[in-house]
């Protein structure tokens, strides 16, 4: 469902070429739930932007839902849903309900289908209490639930979330996680999220992609991840180890000798 | 002299310096503003040249004086903040942070004035000089008649401008729609400061009124001092008078704002 083949992305900052992402290759199969981890500035957001068509890669090839995001941006937009944890895709001054209605019209979702989906989502995400509230007055947790609803109204095959649980309290986090798990399990929606919260990884994902210095530093299951540091009790320590290990080595020529391997696609 | 008093004396220059530095970080915006002010200056100059060709000597200016007037007033837009704003106060009132400002031992108005003088000094250099230089290159500008008096007049103009903007900003405490107020202030300032046309050519009683209002102290009067079309002593006294009135009014409003915000809690 998501394919990256030798994807690279350079930026020119003050006449110096910076490699934000280099030679990144991975595949996420349909129906998978994958998390993309990595320290700040590792290239996660750049990767997300290339997958969603906001940014054009400088090298390599990306295919999402069968489309090249940078060439077929609009067509892709109808097949994927995107959620940004740090900013909203809703209209700040409009009530949530009006924002969702606008999304419906922009994505040309049939009115009847919209009503059914909204009812379902309102039930699952408990939106009822704040559908009439302007988005700027929503709490972060309410806003995030609204944003997830907006991203799913057109029933996309892929949902990409950039730090969806950032800043949420324990209860909101649990609600969002629970919803995403059900979405993936019951509807078969492919989910890719980035996060700094390892609780997201442990509770949601079987698959972990660890990006550091713009490269894929680890690709495997959560259990594989634990196996890289058998002595460690918590997954936080394991990941901290990985980050530190790759920081200890210089950026060139290769970050860290970590077990990077491709998972065979679970569904063909 | 108590040590506390000594600290207060050095506080305000320091605040002015901070104001200067804070605006220096937005140098690209300032240069873009200077560019815009210059382009508009050229356009306005041609309109005035056409008017003065039809009516030579109008309002006591010759063509060269009218052109100089145009570029001077364009140069004043930045330092005198003729389009309004320049103060953080409205945002701080809306967010409630102003309560913190009002309980500080230093008076809020003096605090803001110091920062604003620093801002004006920076914008005088970065947004004031480019339009004047381009004007001089394209049209040739008249030299200042009394440079020292002109500088004093510019400083007093900034104080009058601050006094007015402070009142407008503080009114946010009582008026819900501060955007409407800002627009009203901008209309009054741009029209009655002499920015759009010299007040000297406003006809009859309307002209007398326009020349007596505080806004004329922000652009018309300093420009007249520069051109020698106003007697410096009287001009500076006029500006100082309005500065005193507006600052006093602002001080009264600060007291009222403190009672409203600190005692009633917003």
């Amino acid at each position, binding site marked *: 469902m998501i394919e990256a083949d030798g994807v690279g992305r350079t930026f020119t900052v003050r006449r110096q070429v910076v490699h934000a992402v280099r030679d990144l290759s991975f595949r996420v199969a349909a129906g998978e739930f994958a998390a993309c981890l990595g320290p700040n500035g590792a290239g996660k957001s750049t990767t997300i932007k290339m997958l969603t068509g906001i940014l054009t890669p400088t090298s390599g090839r990306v295919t999402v839902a069968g489309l090249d995001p*940078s060439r077929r941006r609009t067509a892709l937009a109808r097949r994927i849903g995107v959620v940004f944890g740090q900013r909203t895709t809703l209209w700040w001054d409009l009530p949530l309900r009006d924002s969702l209605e606008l999304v419906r019209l922009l994505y040309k979702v049939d009115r009847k289908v919209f009503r059914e989906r909204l009812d379902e989502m309102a039930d699952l995400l408990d939106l009822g209490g704040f559908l009439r509230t302007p988005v700027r007055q929503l709490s972060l947790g309410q806003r995030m639930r609204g944003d997830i609803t907006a991203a799913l109204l057109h029933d996309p095959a892929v949902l990409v979330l950039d730090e969806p649980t950032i800043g949420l309290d324990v209860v909101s986090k649990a609600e969002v996680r629970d919803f995403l798990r059900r979405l993936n399990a019951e509807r078969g929606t492919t989910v890719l999220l980035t996060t700094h919260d390892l609780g997201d990884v442990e509770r949601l994902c079987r698959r972990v992609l660890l990006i550091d210095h713009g490269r894929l530093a680890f690709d495997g299951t959560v259990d594989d991840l634990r196996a890289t540091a058998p002595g460690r009790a918590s997954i936080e320590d394991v990941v901290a180890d990985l980050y530190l290990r790759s920081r200890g080595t210089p950026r060139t020529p290769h970050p860290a000798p970590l077990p990077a391997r491709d998972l065979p696609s679970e569904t063909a | 002299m108590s040590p506390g008093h000594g600290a207060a004396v050095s506080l305000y220059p320091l605040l002015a310096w901070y104001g200067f530095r804070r605006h220096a970080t937005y140098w690209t915006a300032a240069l873009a503003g200077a560019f815009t002010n210059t382009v508009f200056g050229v356009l306005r100059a041609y309109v005035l040249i056409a008017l003065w060709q039809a009516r030579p000597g109008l309002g006591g200016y010759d063509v060269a004086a009218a052109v100089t007037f145009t570029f001077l007033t364009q140069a004043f837009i930045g330092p005198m903040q003729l389009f309004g704003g320049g103060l953080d106060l409205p945002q701080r009132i809306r967010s409630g942070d102003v309560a913190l400002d009002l309980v500080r031992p230093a008076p809020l108005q003096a605090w803001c004035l110091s920062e604003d003088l620093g801002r004006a000094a920076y914008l005088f250099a970065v947004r004031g000089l480019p339009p004047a230089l381009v004007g001089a290159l394209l049209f040739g500008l008249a030299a200042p008649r009394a440079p020292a008096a002109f500088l004093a007049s510019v400083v007093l103009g900034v104080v009058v401008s601050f006094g007015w903007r402070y009142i407008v900003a503080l009114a946010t405490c009582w008026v819900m729609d501060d955007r409407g107020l800002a627009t009203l202030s901008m209309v009054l300032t741009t029209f009655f400061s002499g920015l759009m046309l010299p007040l000297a050519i406003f006809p009859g009683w309307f002209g007398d009124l326009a020349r007596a209002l505080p806004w004329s102290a922000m652009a018309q009067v300093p420009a007249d001092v520069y051109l020698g079309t106003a007697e410096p002593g009287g001009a500076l006294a006029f500006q100082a008078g309005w500065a005193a009135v507006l600052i006093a009014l602002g001080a009264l409003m600060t007291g009222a704002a403190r009672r409203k915000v600190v005692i009633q809690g917003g």
Partner: protein
Amino acid sequence: MIRTYALLAWTWTRAAAQYRLSFTLVTLGAFVVGGLDIAVIWVIFANTDTLAGFALSEVMLLYGASQLAFALADLLFGNVDRISQHIRAGTLDVMLIRPASPFAQVAADRFSPHRIGRAAQAAVVLGVALARLEIPLGRVWMVPVMVASGAVIFTALFTLGGALQFLLTDAPEVANAFTYGGAMLNQYPLSVYDARIVRGLTFVLPLAFVNWQPGLYVLGRPDPLGLPSWTGLLSPAVALALAAVAALAWRAGIRRYRSTGS
């Protein structure tokens, strides 16, 4: 694209209409602020009978036509000049993940219907000028054509200014010099300006086709530069050509954004 625009604009209009009093006041404010320009013209003509060879009614015609064109462009597409804010706040990213034209989304974002106040003020001035001038029917048909072409030219300018902001994200004010500067420039007969400037405005940045050339045709006056009287009839063609250039520049801007990720 039109559908997206209409949708978003309608939503914002409904949002604005919820605060009826505020909406009325701001619309009246826009009317009054526009009236300030006409006050300046009034002061000028209190001092002289003609400005660069044009009488008050003729200047009012030129002013009314260009300001109406500008106000319409500003009402419908003026928000394109907020593109640098969208770039800095990251909201352009949000627009790019939607299946709709980013141009329509930026132009319609925070659509402010109160700007109609400014258009109304300009329309009043234009109406008064037409009533005083008694222009023959054979030429008066050019007035609506001139306003429409002018609106397209100003829209193209707003778009070019927006495209420029992809390069000058930190200094969006530079673009204002062209859009608002262009509007101010056209308030007066171009004969007040130096002939070199007027040539530049005819052949390079074709602001002379907003109201000057077609205005000369409507008024039945010869062009000071000696161009034939039918030059004014070219306004619609010039407007479309400039719109095409602006569309290309905008596309280039979006492409640059997606390839630099600023």
